[in-house]
């Protein structure tokens, strides 16, 4: 027996005879009655995902604002560093001043 041919023949039979699409009597009314009886229970995961999705809009807005503010103040800082008498070395010296021990100070102790 040719199984491949049998397979095609049976699939052809299933295609030729689609299932009945008949709907039981008063089915719509039964569905509505069932829905009225059981109140809609929201899916907690869906609600959680929807809240996150909604929260993303203000988050992005805050991100854009902060990025703009940071860029703007960064621009001010960089212009400050180009001023005469203010360099990166001056900043480093000022920051490390507290931890730097003068040469020979340890010997004095």
């Amino acid at each position, binding site marked *: 027996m040719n199984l491949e041919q049998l397979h095609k023949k049976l*699939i052809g039979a299933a295609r030729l005879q689609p299932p009945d699409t008949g709907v039981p009597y008063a*089915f719509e009314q039964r569905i509505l009655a069932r829905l009225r009886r059981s109140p809609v229970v929201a899916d907690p995961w869906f609600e959680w995902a929807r809240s996150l999705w909604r929260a993303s809009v203000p988050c992005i807005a805050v991100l854009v604002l902060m990025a703009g503010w940071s860029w703007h103040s960064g621009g001010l800082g960089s212009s400050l560093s180009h001023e005469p008498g203010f360099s990166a070395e001056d900043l480093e010296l000022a920051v490390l001043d507290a931890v730097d021990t003068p040469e020979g100070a340890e010997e004095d102790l």
Partner: protein
Amino acid sequence: MITIPSVTEGKTDAELIAEVLKGDLGSFEPIVARYSPRLFGTARRYARRESEVEDIVQEIWSKVFQKLSTWRGDAPFEHWLMRLAVHTCYDFLRQHKRNREDTLTDLTREEEDWLERFAADPGQAPEDADAARLLVARLLEQLSPASRLVITLLEIEDRSVKEIAAITGWSVPLVKVRAFRARAEMQKCLRRVAQEKYL
């Protein structure tokens, strides 16, 4: 507050859904009436007992009602509905896979006659015979849920791999792999029938 408007005929799906989402449950009835025949046709492909078919369609409509607000309206409602229907049918198959009976050994007289006619001359076995329809239903019942779903969508409903991927949520390569496995499973079942009857 639930209200039932008297005029719902002629409204589009989107209009009816908008009304349902506003709390008008009555607008859901024309949607149920419009699409239930299609859903019953789909459910009858996966369940044989009429009580199971009705349970599946009720489950689909419950899910539709629960998730109605997730329909965004950028694709036809029917596509969204059919995706939900196929998922529900697949869940049904997975829940009932342990209840599958080995029905390949007890073929009816008509089914055996049809197979004998096919064995003698494949052209003589008519495709429109009830026996062929029952035989293919028996064979499909032997398949795993994924294989049955793929064979039904790909070969019986003649959908494309891309369409099946969109309906099931599987990737295109996964659909192809499952289609390959499903055909192999089907061949195995056919071989069993052939061996039991003709060897």
